[in-house]
């Protein structure tokens, strides 16, 4: 009697994309924040050229994480404020389909922001960030952040002062992702030989997969009352 998983996921992603193309509510906020973040870091690190080069991958990931936090909060608020999440929960679709639908659209939006700031940072920080392996690291890492972020945004949706709660809940849990992603990116940026960063990239992928599996198992408990 359930609506097929794929149909439900595609419906949710399609709905989010359509609404976003019309309003650009999420992307504009996330992108402007990300660009500001990069500029502010650039000024803050201006005095010390060496420090700036060292910090590039840190800046990249911190910017991505904060921008995605904004996006996740907003995207779930769009569902929660009008009670729309209830309307989805009423439908005969599995809870994991709702989670995965929201995860995919959150991932898509964060990925777009990432693809905007990579070339931008290449220009501002005068260092080539458009390397295949770095882009792959970004694609994997952002997926990890999106899965844990979507789950925790659903969790904090019903808490008092949820805007503040999501970062507090997510940042510590996202630490393994952040750590491995930054390690891999730094070494890739420094043109280090593959043996120095491949392990980090593999670790990042492993953590991402573990988080995805955990989210998959646990999302039902977060969506049901």
């Amino acid at each position: 009697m359930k609506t097929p998983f794929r149909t439900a996921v595609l419906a949710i992603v399609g709905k989010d994309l359509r609404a976003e193309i019309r309003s650009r509510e999420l992307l504009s906020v996330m992108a402007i924040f990300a660009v500001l973040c990069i500029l502010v870091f650039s000024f803050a690190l201006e005095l010390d050229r060496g420090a700036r080069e060292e910090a590039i991958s840190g800046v990249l990931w911190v910017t991505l994480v904060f921008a995605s936090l904004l996006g996740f909060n907003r995207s779930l608020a769009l569902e929660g404020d009008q009670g729309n999440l209830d309307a989805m929960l009423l439908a005969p679709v599995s809870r994991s389909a709702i989670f995965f639908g929201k995860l995919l659209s959150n991932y898509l939006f964060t990925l777009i922001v990432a693809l905007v700031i990579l070339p931008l940072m290449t220009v501002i920080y005068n260092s080539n960030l458009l390397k295949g392996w770095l882009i792959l690291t970004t694609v994997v890492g952002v997926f990890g952040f999106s899965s844990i972020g979507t789950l925790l945004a659903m969790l904090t949706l019903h808490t008092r002062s949820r805007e503040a709660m999501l970062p507090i809940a997510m940042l510590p849990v996202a630490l393994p992702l952040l750590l491995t992603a930054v390690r891999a990116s730094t070494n890739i940026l420094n043109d280090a030989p593959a043996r120095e960063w491949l392990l980090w990239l593999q670790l990042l992928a492993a953590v991402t997969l573990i988080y995805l599996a955990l989210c998959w198992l646990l999302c039902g408990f977060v969506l049901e009352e």
Partner: protein
Amino acid sequence: MGEKTPIIEVENLSKTFGLLPVLRSVSFGVARGETIMLLGQNGGGKSTLLRLLAGLSKPTAGLIRIGGWQMPKEVMEVRRQIGLVSHQPLLYGNLSARENLDFFGKLYGLTKDERVEGIGAVLDQVGLAKRADSLARDFSRGMQQRLSIARALLHQPEILLLDEPFTGLDQAAAETLEHLVLSAQREERTLIMTTHQLGRAPALARRALILSRGQIAFDGDIATMSAASLGELYASLCGGAAVA
């Protein structure tokens, strides 16, 4: 109507939020095609009861059976039979009326043809056919409410749950809504609605449940009652002045 097989059976249903009991051992049955008016003070457990019936929330104790399926265990089987109109519109402001309905149609597994046909029909029914392609956020409160009824009707549910559908509606919108309720009754759908506008109750339903302090204080026929005597009954059970 009482002889028909019950489509909804509720036995000793209790729900506690935190430590606050909202429903205490509520039992009743609803026959197929019956309309029930659920009355009671704000915070008296009306919305909670509807959410439990809709499968949005799980009971602390007690049994709910809908169409023979046990809740919340077999809730997936029940979902397709239920339409809920909440006091919130449950719509996406950045999507047009048609897109909103199309999205929910997909979630209910309707095929493309079913959706096109069904959306046209329900939009006609709620009188929004001309505004099908306007964004939901540009709609007035009344229009949003009508669209949200269209959403609840789209998958042709057996049971329609309406939570304070008259709140915030102007006279014209309220009349359209009343029309819709009556036509749903003609289609033999089972309706449970809450309201605190007692004046409307006798015109729309024969049977009323009055909830007071989380318990059923009255369960009976109100078809023959005048609005005034219903108001008196309500005041005696719930205390305080009733809204006419």
